[in-house]
């Protein structure tokens, strides 16, 4: 399979007062051209850190290792200048929390035109035309007016779309969207799905969508990767994962969805500082035994296109 993005043993850790936080541990996955991969998991499992690791957006002092191959080139070893040429132009990134992700003292138009200048090399009237076109394609009723608004004058859903518009400027072949539905209601979620679909149509891109929203992930993604405590525990085609979950964590997540009876998963994720020796999910797993707690399970293939990190499928 030809791949666009390939993560090869990627780990990310940062120092905190209480110790080394291993936010991402030995993650491997690939995204093929035209594919939309969903990275799902509960808050704090390391999925947002992974998203920022790919574009090296984390603050200095964060330890990253492994290889991140994009179109055959390793993003990890690139110079600062080379990675800047990838950001926005080759890989767009939609930050989580649109209220904080937009500069509060600059108009939407200013921020959008800046994106077009930096990522698309457009200036003046041409940039303006393009900006209006992008805004109109994201179903803004009055693009001219939006250009003159400040972020605080827009609703949450509009800010999300404005952010999406900025990411579209470089017509990138790849998109990373971090929690695009966080804090939005069901109606706005529909709008976000629509705007991301327009994004994909507009740029013809592939993408990585980071979310804790299973319903949204099912609507958007071809393939899902499920993260738990910094590592991927199950991945495969989205439809199959939903119909036939393998990992006990995925089964538990599906059971916690409202339409499946909202059976809440008890307990909380293990600390990312003091990891258990064995399976990280063992403490919350109904099937865990002594062997599970003693040895850390590896990812293994279960059927075509599917992998799971659970001893029960040995």
């Amino acid at each position: 399979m030809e791949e666009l993005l390939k993560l090869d043993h990627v780990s990310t850790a940062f120092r905190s007062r209480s110790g080394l936080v291993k936010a991402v541990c030995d993650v491997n996955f690939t995204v093929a051209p035209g594919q939309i991969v969903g990275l799902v998991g509960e808050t704090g499992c390391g999925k947002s850190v992974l998203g920022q690791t790919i574009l090296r957006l984390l603050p200095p002092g964060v330890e990253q290792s492994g290889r991140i191959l994009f179109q055959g080139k390793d993003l990890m070893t690139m110079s600062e200048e080379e990675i800047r040429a990838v950001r926005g132009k080759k890989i767009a990134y939609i930050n989580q929390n649109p209220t904080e992700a937009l500069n509060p003292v600059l108009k939407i138009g200013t921020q959008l035109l800046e994106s077009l200048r930096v990522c698309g090399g457009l200036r003046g009237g041409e940039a303006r035309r393009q900006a209006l076109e992008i805004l109109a394609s994201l179903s803004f009723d009055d693009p001219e007016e939006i250009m003159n608004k400040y972020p605080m004058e827009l609703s949450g859903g509009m800010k999300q779309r404005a952010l999406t518009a900025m990411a579209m400027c470089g017509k990138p072949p790849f998109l990373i969207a971090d929690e695009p539905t966080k804090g939005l209601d069901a109606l706005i979620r529909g709008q976000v799905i629509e705007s991301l679909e327009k994004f994909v149509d507009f740029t013809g891109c592939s993408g990585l969508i980071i979310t804790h929203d299973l319903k949204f992930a099912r609507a958007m993604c071809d393939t899902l990767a499920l993260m738990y405590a910094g590592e991927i525990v199950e991945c495969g085609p989205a439809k199959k994962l939903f119909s036939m979950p393998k990992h006990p964590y995925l089964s538990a997540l599906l059971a916690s969805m409202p339409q499946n009876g909202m059976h809440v998963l008890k307990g909380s994720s293990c600390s990312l500082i003091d990891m258990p020796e064995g399976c990280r999910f063992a403490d919350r797993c109904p099937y865990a035994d002594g062997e599970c707690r003693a040895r850390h399970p590896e990812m293994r293939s279960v059927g075509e296109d599917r992998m799971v990190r659970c001893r029960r499928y040995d």
Partner: protein
Amino acid sequence: MKALPILKKLLVSVLTALFVSFLTYGLLYISPGDPAELLLTEKMGSMGVQKEVVQRYAEQLGLNKGFLEMYRDWFVNMLHGDLGTSYKTGNPVLTDFLSRLGCSAQLALLSTAISLVLGVGLGILSARRRNGIIDRLTRFFSAVSLSVPSFWLAILFLWIFAMKLGWFPIADYQGIRSLILPGVVMGVSGCAGLIRVTRSGVLDNLSEGYVVTARARGLNDRQVFLGHVLKNVMLPVVTMVTSSLIAHIGGSVIIENIFSLPGVGNFLLRALRSKDFPAILGFVFLMGMIVVVLTTVADLLYLAIDPRVREGMYEKK
């Protein structure tokens, strides 16, 4: 932009300035010493002045009227643009004020400019090289500048640069040449707050989400800083700069005294000693008006920089 809140604020500020002048007058009125006697004594020397002469002089000045009556007279005249005549110099108060404002305003502008350049410059440098050698030196410098009193620094500078090295005049006023030393003293002692505000502002903003968004679009550090962070950092800086400008115009009494400058503060100090009512009332009121104008300018600057102020969102933050 809404003009009404600004007008309202302006009105309140003018009333405040009037109230302050009334308060000053009241405090002065109850403090011991008869201005007529003080003035005559000063004019004639300590020979002792005859009581009836003092009384005639007091009548001439209108000092025999009651407390409120005197203030009312002053107020009515003020509304007609007449701030009265100084007992001591015999000039119209406005003329006296304007002739001294130049020196004080120049000093305030010079010292604030020095504070601004030093404070913002060092603040940015120290934030961008966090925990580096420049940052440590800057933090040390700002701690020192906070703890060293400005009058002490003034005397030190006067001693080194004017007396020992002879670079600057000591007592005779020579225009801008005389203002450099006091300007530097006030600028250096005033920049500590600005350094801190700028440094923490830059550091706080660098961890904001919009910085990640900007970097994710391929902007380099310089573009992120100049295009995005700087404008956000400028908000508290504008506040500090205006308040320091205000403080420097009226509050540089000690520095003006040490450097023997013919400024507003020094004049006011002398007027207070001789209970020169018209001069004191006029000066306090006019300085109040300058504060009103400057704060209004600051408010307008705020509106220009931060759209959130326009919507009244700023109080929520």
